[in-house]
């Protein structure tokens, strides 16, 4: 990449990360004012940035990309990485489309073996849905949303970097899984019991599941970050109703993500336990096991498809507005429709289960809710169509893709109504009708996001792409898309995931294969176009698109590191940048009405604490987790791996834990500043600090996680027989006393945390340390007591339980150990945090009101852990 003249040249201030946070901020401020008009205030158009970049190397340096925490850089990382996964998932699809060129009859060998074919279709689905679509959307979300909100960055920049590196690590894990006896081969839906070691013994299967779990963790961290940002860092005047449509769609997406992914995480934890520890949730003989998986998976799975589509919808709305030159028709109703869909998405999941054992009343209910959710989409489709009336419609590449996306989505949506009619679904189940339907809607979403890529490309790179090649891409893409997916409707009776089909279907299968290659090739046009335009594209000004309205178009392309020259505000009904009196600069004419204003609420020097941008620890932590998960995946059904290979795996795992843990500690110790914005819309979190908001949002997700585990237990117990469960499956040696002792220990430890907080407010270092140490001892006592209890239960030797009551004994033991085990892991993590807090408190931190907050945040977590125990204790010891 050639050096961009707008990037700063390296100055002596560019110190490595350890110094970055403590760069003399005060100097930076006075330096600017002393230098006069040009130096420190970034101007939106074509002015060189001088002044230090807060220890962040220039974009041309590789090191920058490993230490950056800036939302724009991370957005670029997400977009580029996700496009790599598009190619990966697409190649898998091309492999099985080659196989489907002719039916493979029994006894013949096809292009792929049966096992390879099953892996190809399964990983294709997983990669496209998880590793391509959402990260692609979130690349744009990362880049654009803070700009649209008027914020300088996300609320927690280092967590943002962690999200990205976790995502990359999870992708690497998925790639590695192919080499461990084959990857997961049970469909992207991973139905039980096919997903357990009895039927899928390969280690690669476990690694793939862990890869997905790591991805979900990345997403959860990201959701907490986005939710905190979007609720607390909006420009003044930008109420939630006034959010730009792309940001509004992202807000709803992350709310859905927070709750839906917690359910998937629970399903994956349980599946991992079945594969690694040997628990028996999903065994063939387990009560309700196979249907339990479908509930856990689809409760996530249905919101997931909207999670994947909403960003595309938001981008389409922005693109329609810009390229028709009209504000969205029925905007209020459009936003209400999106909100309704987000809420309703959690009450339709059983339409994926119409052929299971659910009864008629439930089928009817879910048929009704499914039809209910299609109605807001009708409204949104019409809103977009009406927006074109009296427009100044310019069919540029972004608009062609957005327009095409709408068309494809209409077709996909209509075919979805067929699936909502239960009696039709009885026949469509497991056939190409479903496949064609979801590819029309989901790849329709991709089409919208490709439009977004062309739309925001000038903003991100400062260059225009080649318009002719863009239009050519669209033409080839649209032809390839329909050649590939429409035949699948024609041969809808073909079963899914098979490679032996009726010869009458062959011409259509071949047409689809040709279409697949055309669609794939169209992306080559795009890569070429976007790649070469980085060098040869015309320079783009701040707003190359007429009628673009949102804040990202009011600043330079690409925007300066701090985004805006002042604090963005819409208080006067249009965008302006506020600064203290005396710091207002005239902006170049390009921005039109957008200018800087003096505001009496801002004192000179209000931004003396400059934001930090560089930290290497997110990358380090992610690599640690990668190795740790690799090691974990090698454990099979409760047995450690043997031999040299086994030792290597376990060694890697231990190393990973060490690296990850060290990274986390150093991340905590690092002086990293992500200052609060002084003037912002914060509803409904006014008066609550940023950190506290983040902790509460995280806990909301954790509540759903535990809810799913408890729900799974209750579900299985009802299926078996609620009252006979205790008699048939639990040995008499399982008594209440250890649970009771643990309850007292935990409750007391919550009290001591409150004491620590009081001591902090009273500036008593000894008090803080003593309370925290007591908490630690009580927590350790809890764990030791539990260990003794478990050991005692493992050692039972009776006729009923000749091998003890252990992980794999029966459903009651599996649910007991895993649910209370998950809780114990939460306790263990809490104790690690306590140890860290003790270490810092000993050094005198946390004293005085403002600094005691870390203990308060920990207290929130710890009380949550206690409250969960208060549910688990009666469920697993008394009832």
């Amino acid at each position, binding site marked *: 990449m050639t050096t961009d003249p707008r990037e700063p040249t390296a100055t002596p201030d560019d110190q490595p990360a350890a110094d970055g946070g403590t760069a003399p901020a005060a100097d930076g401020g006075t330096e600017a004012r002393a230098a006069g008009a040009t130096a420190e205030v970034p101007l939106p158009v074509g002015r060189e940035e001088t002044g230090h970049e807060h220890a962040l190397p220039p974009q041309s340096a590789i090191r920058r990309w490993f230490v950056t925490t800036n939302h724009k850089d991370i957005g670029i990382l997400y977009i580029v990485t996700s496009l790599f996964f598009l190619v990966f998932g697409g190649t898998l699809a091309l492999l099985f489309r080659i196989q489907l060129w002719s039916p493979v009859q029994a006894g013949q060998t096809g292009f792929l073996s049966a096992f390879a074919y099953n892996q190809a279709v399964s990983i294709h689905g997983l990669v496209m849905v998880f590793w391509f679509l959402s990260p692609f959307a979130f690349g744009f979300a990362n880049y654009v949303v803070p700009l649209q909100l008027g914020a300088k960055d996300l609320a927690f920049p280092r967590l943002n970097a962690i999200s990205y590196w976790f995502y990359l690590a999870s992708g690497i894990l998925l790639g590695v899984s192919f080499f461990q006896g084959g990857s997961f081969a049970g469909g992207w839906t991973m139905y039980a019991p096919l997903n357990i070691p009895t039927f899928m013994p390969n280690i690669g299967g476990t690694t793939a599941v862990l890869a997905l779990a790591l991805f979900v963790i990345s997403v959860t961290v990201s959701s907490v970050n986005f939710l905190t940002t979007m609720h607390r860092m909006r420009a003044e005047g930008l109420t939630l109703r006034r959010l730009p449509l792309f940001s509004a769609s992202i807000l709803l997406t992350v709310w859905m993500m927070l709750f839906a992914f917690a359910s998937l995480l629970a399903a994956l934890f349980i599946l991992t336990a079945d594969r690694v520890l040997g628990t028996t949730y999903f065994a063939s003989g387990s009560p309700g096991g196979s249907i339990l998986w479908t509930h856990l998976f689809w409760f996530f799975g249905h919101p997931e498809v909207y999670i994947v589509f909403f960003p595309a919808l938001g981008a389409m709305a922005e693109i329609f507005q810009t390229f028709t030159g009209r504000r969205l028709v029925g905007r209020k109703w459009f936003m209400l429709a999106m909100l309704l869909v987000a809420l309703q998405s959690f009450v339709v999941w059983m339409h994926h289960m119409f052929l299971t054992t659910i009864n008629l009343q439930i089928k009817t209910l879910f048929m009704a809710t499914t039809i209910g959710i299609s109605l807001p989409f009708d409204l949104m489709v019409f809103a977009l169509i009406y927006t074109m009336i009296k427009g100044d419609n310019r069919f540029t590449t972004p608009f062609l893709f957005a327009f095409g996306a709408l068309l494809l989505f209409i077709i996909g949506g209509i075919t979805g109504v067929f699936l909502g009619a239960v009696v*039709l679904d009885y026949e469509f189940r497991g056939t190409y009708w479903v496949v064609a339907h979801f590819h029309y809607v989901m790849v329709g979403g991709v089409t919208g996001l490709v439009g977004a890529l062309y739309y925001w490309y000038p903003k991100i790179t400062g260059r225009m792409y080649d318009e002719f090649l863009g239009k050519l891409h669209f033409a080839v893409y649209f032809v390839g898309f329909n050649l590939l997916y429409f035949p699948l409707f024609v041969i809808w009776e073909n079963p899914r995931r098979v490679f032996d089909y009726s010869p009458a279907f062959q011409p259509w299968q071949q047409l689809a294969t040709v279409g697949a290659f055309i669609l794939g090739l169209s992306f080559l046009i795009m890569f070429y176009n976007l790649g070469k335009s980085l060098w040869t594209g015309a320079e783009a000004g701040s707003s190359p698109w007429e009628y673009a309205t949102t804040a990202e178009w009011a600043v330079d392309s690409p925007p300066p590191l701090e985004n805006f020259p002042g604090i963005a505000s819409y208080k006067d009904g249009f965008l302006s940048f506020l600064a203290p009196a005396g710091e207002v600069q005239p902006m170049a004419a390009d921005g039109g*009405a957008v200018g800087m204003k003096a505001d009496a609420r801002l004192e000179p020097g209000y931004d003396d604490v400059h934001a930090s941008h560089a930290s290497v620890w997110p990358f380090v932590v992610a690599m640690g987790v990668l190795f740790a998960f690799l090691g974990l995946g090698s454990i099979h059904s409760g047995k450690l791996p043997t031999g040299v290979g086994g030792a290597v795996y376990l060694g890697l795992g231990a190393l990973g834990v060490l690296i990850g843990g060290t990274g986390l500690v150093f991340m905590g110790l690092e002086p990293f500043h992500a200052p609060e914005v002084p003037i912002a819309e914060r509803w409904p979190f006014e008066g609550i600090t940023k950190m506290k908001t983040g902790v509460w949002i995280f806990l909301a997700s954790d509540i759903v996680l535990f809810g799913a585990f408890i729900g799974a237990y209750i579900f299985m117990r009802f299926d078996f027989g609620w009252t006979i469960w205790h008699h048939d499956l639990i040995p008499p040696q399982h008594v209440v006393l250890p649970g009771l002792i643990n309850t007292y220990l935990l409750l007391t430890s919550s009290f001591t945390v409150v004491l620590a907080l009081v001591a902090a407010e009273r500036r008593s270092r000894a008090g803080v340390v003593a309370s925290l140490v007591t908490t630690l001892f009580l927590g350790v006592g809890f764990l030791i007591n539990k260990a003794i209890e478990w050991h005692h239960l493992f050692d039972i030797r009776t006729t009923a339980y000749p091998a003890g009551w252990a992980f794999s004994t029966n459903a009651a033991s599996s649910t007991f150990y895993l649910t209370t085990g998950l809780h114990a892991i939460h306790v263990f993590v809490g104790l690690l945090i306590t140890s860290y807090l003790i270490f810092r408190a000993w050094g005198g931190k946390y004293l005085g009101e403002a600094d005691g907050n870390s203990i308060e945040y920990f207290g929130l977590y710890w009380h949550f852990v206690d409250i969960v125990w208060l549910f688990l204790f009666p469920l697993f010891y008394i009832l």
Partner: protein
Amino acid sequence: MSLVIWPNLLVPLQGGSLIPTGSRVHIFQSIYLVFLLLGTAVGIVVISYMLYNGYTYRTGSEKSERADVDRPQLGEIPTGGGGGRHLALSFSLSTIIVVSLIIWTYGTLLYVSNPTAAQSAGELHVTVVGKQFAWEFHYPNGYVADSSNGDPFRVPVNRRVQLTVTSKDVFHDFGIPSLRVKSDAMPGQTTSQWFLATQTGTHIARCYELCGAGHSYMTAKVVVMPQNAFDSWYATTGNNTTTATPSAA
């Protein structure tokens, strides 16, 4: 509320033409055809309207130039373009179409799920057990046909067959596409579906849920026989009683 009233209005019409009755093939075909025609019509209308608007108001066209509309400005606070009334009309229309379709198919669902005593009289009950990678058919007299041995699934023509479907190992799905019947086969659970073959002939049953490497070949032959032929054959199986009972609870 309306969901309770409307189907009850439809019930008396079950004997008539509104709710399709008879074999699963006829039921499916009737509904599918209506949905297909209506869906295609709606799709063509909406997409044509979309293309029309896009083209008519393309930049530089006369209508576009004449349009007296306030265009968006950079930096304006996001607002809407009005026009909520047209939206209400299209939305109501699409709602009526979609909801009517679903209420109609709900009537069909009731017919399929709640057979009268007359309809279920004389049914043949067969338990289908899926396993990797074959199907077992357990008849009332204890005889078990196993597709891994090449045994076909023999059924009588013009007589309802009531299936109880389950699995011995993983999650399968039993479907006979040309007879339009399908049901999930889950270990530890049983699902039920019925079908009625109106003509003699041969069909294929397949598996519709990915179940492992042999999923593509998990098929069984289905032979629909004339009533007498079926009865005579069935009588001969009395000697082949196996003690195998279905593994389903």
